[in-house]
């Protein structure tokens, strides 16, 4: 019992500790693809460190929501980390506290607060980005729903630890067309939710075009650090769900031995690194979509997820 509590906390530590590294890796490799040298891998850590040591400026016009939001944005991915398999293939202490739908709700709560905070300061770019985020969000919602319901229908459960066993036992389940289509739809969902390139440009600093970035424009000092760190953790958590629940539930610790759990950390990081490579290929080879084309992108994701559902329902 004690081990499961400790490992649960270890998961949180891994997500908190390695998510800036993931962001740094993606940034660095993207610059390398563009034949530049790029910032150091550790740059996100330095950014966060620097932000924590700076003064904070808060508009007098803003309400408590603006001050409260960074904590919500920071803690939501931490809560979700408690629910999903990051290092182990068996349920940890808090695994049954909430299912995947619960995790989705917690992340949506953070998005809700970030939207409110962006509107709060009356900076002209904040509400614009916030409304665009809502646009992407409500188009992504049906995809999330269908993917989630198909996955839990197949597994007969909504707990991610149980779902992850389903697609690889027997191994031929892995090649099920429903599975492949679900993977594709979820990948497109990650691109949309994580603000990656066909939907949003994460490294663009052009205010009129930005979607995700503009919500945290008004933040400074420690609050900015929390927002930045929270965003990085959210991407890491989404990738963990994708890799450990849906795509490759291998390399996770099977027993409660400490050595095995520690060995799982580099294996998981290797998987995340390979995913980052795929992400970089996608980001470097596509152009950002025009705003009103996003509905087509996510519409395609929706169609794919429904096709997955149909092919599962009828192929019995």
């Amino acid at each position: 019992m004690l081990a499961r509590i400790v490992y649960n906390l270890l998961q949180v530590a891994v997500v908190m500790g390695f998510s800036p590294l993931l962001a740094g890796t993606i940034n660095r490799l993207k610059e390398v693809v563009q034949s530049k040298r790029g910032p150091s891998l550790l740059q996100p850590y330095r950014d966060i460190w620097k932000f924590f040591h700076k003064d904070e400026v808060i508009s007098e016009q803003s309400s408590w929501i603006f001050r409260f939001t960074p904590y919500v944005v920071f803690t939501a991915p931490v809560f979700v980390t408690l629910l999903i398999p990051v290092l182990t293939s068996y349920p940890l202490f808090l695994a049954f506290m909430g299912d995947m739908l619960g995790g989705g709700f917690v992340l949506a709560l953070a998005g809700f607060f970030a939207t409110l905070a962006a509107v709060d300061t009356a900076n002209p770019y904040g509400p614009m980005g916030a409304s665009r985020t809502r646009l992407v969000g409500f188009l992504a919602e049906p995809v999330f729903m269908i993917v989630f319901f198909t996955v839990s229908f197949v597994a007969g459960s909504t707990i991610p630890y149980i779902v992850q066993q389903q697609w690889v036992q027997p191994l031929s389940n892995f090649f099920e067309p429903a599975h492949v289509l679900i993977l594709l739809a979820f990948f497109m969902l990650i691109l949309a939710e994580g603000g990656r390139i066909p939907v949003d440009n994460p490294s663009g600093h052009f205010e009129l075009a930005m979607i995700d970035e503009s919500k945290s424009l008004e933040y400074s000092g420690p609050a900015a650090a929390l927002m930045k760190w929270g965003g990085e953790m959210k991407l890491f958590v989404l990738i963990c769900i994708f890799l450990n629940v849906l795509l490759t539930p291998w390399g996770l610790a099977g027993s409660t031995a400490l050595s095995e759990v520690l060995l799982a950390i580099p294996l998981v990081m290797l998987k995340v690194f390979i995913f980052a490579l795929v992400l970089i290929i996608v980001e470097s080879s596509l152009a950002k979509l025009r705003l009103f084309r996003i509905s087509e992108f996510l519409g395609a994701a929706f169609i794919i997820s429904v096709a997955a559902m149909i092919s599962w329902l009828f192929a019995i």
Partner: protein
Amino acid sequence: MNPTSFLPQLNALAGGLFLLCTFGMVATRQVQGCMRFFIWQSIFLASSAFLLGVHPVVWDLLAVAAINLINKPVLIPWLLRKTVPEEVYTRREIDQALNIPISLLIALGLVIAAYVITAPLLRIPAGPSVGVNLPIGLAALLLGAYTLTVRREAVPQLLGLLAMENGAFFTSIAIAPELHLFVELVVAFDVLIAVFVIGVLTRALQEHIGTTNVGSLAALKEESAP
């Protein structure tokens, strides 16, 4: 584990990707993209035929796979490149009667319809892969017909026609694996000729009118003698 037990699964996977490519043909805006999706669709068709024919070995299916692999992903695009002028490909936006999200939703409805229509047929015991190939082939047929209806550009319309043909093939390789090889050969050459004729026609259109937008060709026009 016996590796042949994976074959039906892999065939199902090829079917899923085949369906996905057909969706892509409906969804894409560019002639180039439409062509690329068609090429992939044909490759998945060939791989499905290969997977169905490899164990137990059915030479007809393997021949179908080979014919398809040569004919559709290689010969037809090459022929279209040769006959249709370059301007048609460089045009990025395809004119459509409906916008993309709506036509995707209609496409989805067609796929569901295909599954619902074929469900009673599948109660009859048949080969192992009919359950995959019959509904997906029918869906590709319907989607091809839909593309043909909704697109107003000559080359994507042709590709819609070819997608219909691919769908019919996709069904037939599971239902009638012993279909005579001659039929396959005849169809393959027929398709090639059709592509050639339409390609030449498109070229003439492009040269005379400067557009291949067949949707706007509603009125007769007298051509002045040169």
